[in-house]
Each structure stands twice: as C-alpha cells, then as structure tokens.
C-alpha cells in the first residue's frame, strides 16, 4: 500500500542500534514517558493547527461547500455563516476552533446534522473490531511466517512465503477486496458465494453465541483483505530482523551451549528480533487505518473508514476534519505508546 517496505525503522530501534545515533540517556522511565507525552502533545497541537489551516485552504465559500448545491436563501446562508462563526476574523475563528477541539467539540456534520463526535463514537466500535482482529491476525501470521522464513533463510518456505507476501503487498487493497468479494461473496463458477458481503451483522441477527458467529462470518472477507495487505510488512521486518540476529555471536554461543535449534530460536533469536517488530506493529496503525478505509467501503462495514469515505465523497468537510483529526491523534498516541513500550521491552534502552 502506501509506505515503503521496511523503510522506516522505529525511532527507538535506531536510537538503540543505529551507529552514531545518540542513545537516550538513562533517565527514569516515568520521566521518559512524560517527555514522550510532551512530544505527543506537541504533535497533536500541530495536527490541530495544521487541520485548521489545511481546511481553510478549501477553495470557495465554506458555507456553499457545506450546502453542496442545495438551495439556500441568502438569509439562510447568512444564518449558517453566523452559526459556523465564519463571519468572524480568522484569528477568532482559530481560537474558537482550538477551544472547541479541546472541548472535544468537533462540530456538527452537515450531512448527518449531528455532532461529529457522536458519529465517530458510533463507528468506532466496528472499526476497532475489524482493525483489531485484522491486526492481531496479521501480526501473528506475519511474525510466525517471518520467523520461519528468516530462520530457514533461503529455504522453500522462505521463498514461497516471502514471494506471496510481496505479491499481496503489491496488490491495491480495494482491488483485492473486490476480487475476494466477487469470488467468495458472490461466487464464481464452482466456488459458492458463502460469505456475507456487507455490514457487520445480518439484519435478522440472532442472539447469543449465534450472534458472535454471525458477526464472525461477516468479518471473514473484510478481515482477509485487510490481513492480506498488512501482514507482509510484519513478515518482512520480522524476517530481516531475525536474519540480522542470526548472524550475531550470542546465537552461536547459544548453539555452543548445546541448545536445540528451536530453543535457540525461541529463547534467543526471536525475542531480540521481536523488538523492532513490536514497535512496527504500533507504528503501522496508521497504515492499517488507511487500509480499513478501503476495506470498509467495499464491504459496507459501518466503521470510521466508511464514515471518512462518506465524508470525502459528499464532501462533508466538518465530518472529514473531525474524522481526520481523530484518526491522526489516535495514530500519534499509538506511536507514543510504541516508544514507551519499546523502552520497557528493551533493557538496553530501559533505564538501569
């Protein structure tokens, strides 16, 4: 999809391993977390400011934009403009915007006539479910295959799994989604369309465990699509970071100690190789969210991605702005968490 493969290494990893890179000094973890939180706050502030100005870049009259060509009388327009505070000077608008955002008031969607925050609240659950399950599967699959591939470097398993993941990586998400929908949702030739193609549950959804099954069956195709595109990077990173560890002396020492092959892998190589991958899992949340937008659109999954797509298609700028800010802030927080988690996992970075 969008980010180059393996290109970005987590900041913490580079800090720990990169030659010439300044190591974080040994401060307390709390202090570290606080400084990270400060950085996150700064980033969030930049997002808020950036959003304000980018959305003011919009060509044309914002009220008109909001009205999307629906008929409005001049008085209605003036009213609307006043309601949105667009008749105030830019600085006041900015102060207003920041104030509201800080109070979690993301404005009212023009399309839905409802507070953006409420809309987001409703869609959050399905997205968390889809992205969460997808991420868990992608991570386990990617790490597992990456470990095997890296450990048996150049074996057939390695070549096949790396090849498959590269192909899936190169596939545009939406295209894969459409194909899967056609093949497994609608059915082609002898393959019956066995999976639901829309939504998160059937209209006549049953109760109890059957409901869980119902939702699970609805999740099969969206999850499959998401996992297919996302897992490659975990595989590749795990693979290359394991390859790096394999050539380290301590692995040879472990073998010299008389450990079995799988013990060497599980006890020594994998825990070390996991470190950069763990951060990557968090780092790529934004990427997963990006994938979710397409997947949710194709499978009518009532999540944030769909809401965002809707907002773009209409276009409903308040909604777009709100969704964008929320997603971005969430991603920033995830990254901050990644940094902190990394620090806790790696004794080299963790304070003594």
């Amino acid at each position, binding site marked *: 999809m*969008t980010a*180059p493969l393996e290109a970005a290494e987590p900041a913490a990893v580079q800090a720990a391993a990169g030659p010439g890179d300044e190591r974080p000094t040994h401060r307390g973890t709390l202090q570290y977390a606080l400084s990270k939180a400060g950085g996150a706050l700064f980033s969030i502030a930049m997002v808020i400011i950036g959003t304000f100005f980018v959305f003011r870049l919009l060509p044309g009259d914002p009220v008109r934009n909001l009205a999307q060509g629906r008929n409005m009388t001049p008085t209605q327009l003036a009213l609307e403009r006043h309601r949105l505070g667009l008749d105030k000077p830019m600085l006041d608008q900015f102060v207003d915007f920041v104030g509201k955002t800080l109070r979690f008031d993301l404005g009212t969607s023009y399309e839905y006539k409802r507070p953006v925050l409420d809309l987001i609240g409703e869609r959050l659950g399905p997205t968390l479910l889809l992205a969460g399950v997808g991420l868990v599967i992608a991570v386990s699959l990617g790490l597992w295959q990456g470990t095997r591939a890296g450990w048996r470097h150049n074996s057939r398993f390695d070549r096949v799994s790396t090849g498959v993941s590269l192909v899936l990586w190169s596939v545009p998400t*939406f295209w894969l989604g459409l194909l899967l929908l056609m093949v497994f949702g609608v059915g082609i030739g002898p393959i019956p369309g066995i999976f639901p193609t829309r939504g998160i549950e059937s209209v006549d959804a049953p109760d109890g465990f059957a409901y869980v099954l119902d939702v699970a069956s609805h999740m099969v195709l969206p999850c499959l699509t998401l996992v297919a595109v996302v897992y490659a990077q975990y595989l590749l990173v795990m693979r290359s970071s394991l390859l790096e560890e394999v050539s380290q002396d301590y692995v040879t020492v472990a073998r010299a100690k008389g450990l079995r092959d799988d013990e060497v892998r599980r006890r020594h190589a994998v825990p070390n190789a996991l470190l950069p991958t763990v951060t990557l899992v968090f780092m790529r949340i934004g990427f997963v969210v*990006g994938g979710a937008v397409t997947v949710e659109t194709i499978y009518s999954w009532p999540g944030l991605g769909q809401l965002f797509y809707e907002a773009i298609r209409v276009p409903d700028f308040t909604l777009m702005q709100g969704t964008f800010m929320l997603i971005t802030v969430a991603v920033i927080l995830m990254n901050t968490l990644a940094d902190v988690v990394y620090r806790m996992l790696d004794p080299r970075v963790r304070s003594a």
Partner: protein
Amino acid sequence: MSAVATGSVAWSRRRLAFDRFWRDFRQHRGGMVGLLALVVAVVLALVAPLFIDDSVTSVVSGTSDDFAPPSLAAPFGTDESGRSVLLMVWWGSRTSLLIGFLAALLSIVIGMVVGIAAGHFRGWLGATLMRITDWFLVLPSLITAMVLAAILGGSTFTIIVAIGVTTWATTARLIRAQTLAVEARPYIERSKALGGGHWHITTRHVLPNVAPLLLASTTLEVASAIVTESTLAFLGVSANKTSWGTMLRASYDFGAATAGAWWYIIIPGLCILAVVMAFTLCGRALEAVLNPRLRKAG
C-alpha cells in the same frame, strides 16, 4: 597526462563500480525479473505515442460493443464504452507511471534534503527537522493524502503533491539514520581534518553513500505511489486522466463485476500488481546489493 588521465580515471572508476554493481545485482533473480518487467513497462509507456494517442481513451471512438469479452480486435476486451481495455491500459500506463515517478521523486527529494540536513546539522536545526519528520511520519499517509486531494481537487498535480507530501518522512528518517551512520565513520573525520566543509562532506561523502539507498528507496516509493494513486482514484478523490486507478474506478462505477466483465477489473489490476511487484523486487534487490547492512543478511 593529467587532465585526460584524470578524466579517464574517473570514468574507468565509474565503469568498474557499475560492473561490480551489475555483477551483484545479477545474482538476484527476483531483481532481474523485476528489472526486466520494469524496463518493458517503461519502454512501452514511452513508445506508446508512436502507436496510439489520446483517442484510445475517447468514448466517441470506442466502436466495439460495450463490455465485449476479449477478442482479436480487443485482446483484453472492451470497457463500458466499447473502448479497448488493452489500449486504455497501455495509454493509462503513462499516467500511472508518471504519477508514480513524479510523486516518488518529490517525496525522495524532500526526504533526502530533510534527512541529510537533519543528520548532518546537529543542534536546533537538526532537532527541528527531526521533529517535523517525526510528525509527518506518524500521520496516516493515505488518509492525509485523501484529505489533501479532496481539498485541493484531484488533478494530476495535486495527486502528485498529496502523495509526495505525505510520504517523504519515511525517506527522511531512513536517510537521516544513514547520514548519522556515515557521519560517524572515521572518514568523515578525516575529511574534516583535510579541511572539508559542510558542503564538501554532505555532497562528497554523505550523498554518495546514501545515494544507493535513495535509489532503492525511490524504487520502492514509486511502487507505493502507484498503488496510492490507484487507491485515491478508487476512493474517488482523483480526477485524473486515464490511469490504471481511474480505470478500476470506472470498472467499479459501471458495474463491470456484476456485468461479468472480469477482464475490465483483472487487467488494470494485474498491471498495477505487475508494475508494483517489478518495482518492489527491483528495489529490494537494489537494497540488498547496495546496502551493506542488508548485504550480509542477504
């Protein structure tokens, strides 16, 4: 002796370097396949105007039946307006590749300048650049590109800008790390001791050492830019000329799937897949050949 000889010294050095590189690169089967596919794709896109022109994308000239299955006249079938999918894909490759290359170029140039500057200059400048990079790095790039394209309108230019502006941070990060690594090498110290200034060190030592990485990263970046473009087109924020992405969007809009016109969906998709694969394979091979850190791991 001197001028000529120096020239030839430089020249033969370059040849030598290239020969060495080529020998290594040839070892990578995947990379060779990718390179071949890439050359074919680029050459085809370049020579396209010799054989066809914009009219292949014109609905007025689409004379065959709508959604006609592959036939001799239209080997990949026709689209909803009776245009040959083959010719469309061929012509569309120009837009897709152009966007891919330009967006990657933009992204790489920003990433390179910021990355090298952030790595080379310690102190507030480097720190500020790093903060900005980090900020861009965590922005979900597809989402941001969608917002930018939606706001600025989806022309080819804006799509390029939207992709370039949202993806450079990864490159910058990579280049900075590499710059730091290079600058920690004793030869930088030696160069300083010889009297080399900032410009000398960044252009003579840092740049040549990050250039291979940049090349590899550009290749990968092009691949992702092509996919992003198609995704943006699919999500309807791109108002581009015919590209593979807009073709897929049209196939979706015009219900090719339900109409059973599989070729209309499969062909442009496969083109994206093939070219992106080609770039990715090439990029990985380049990375493996050129980045010594990965070289040992293979």
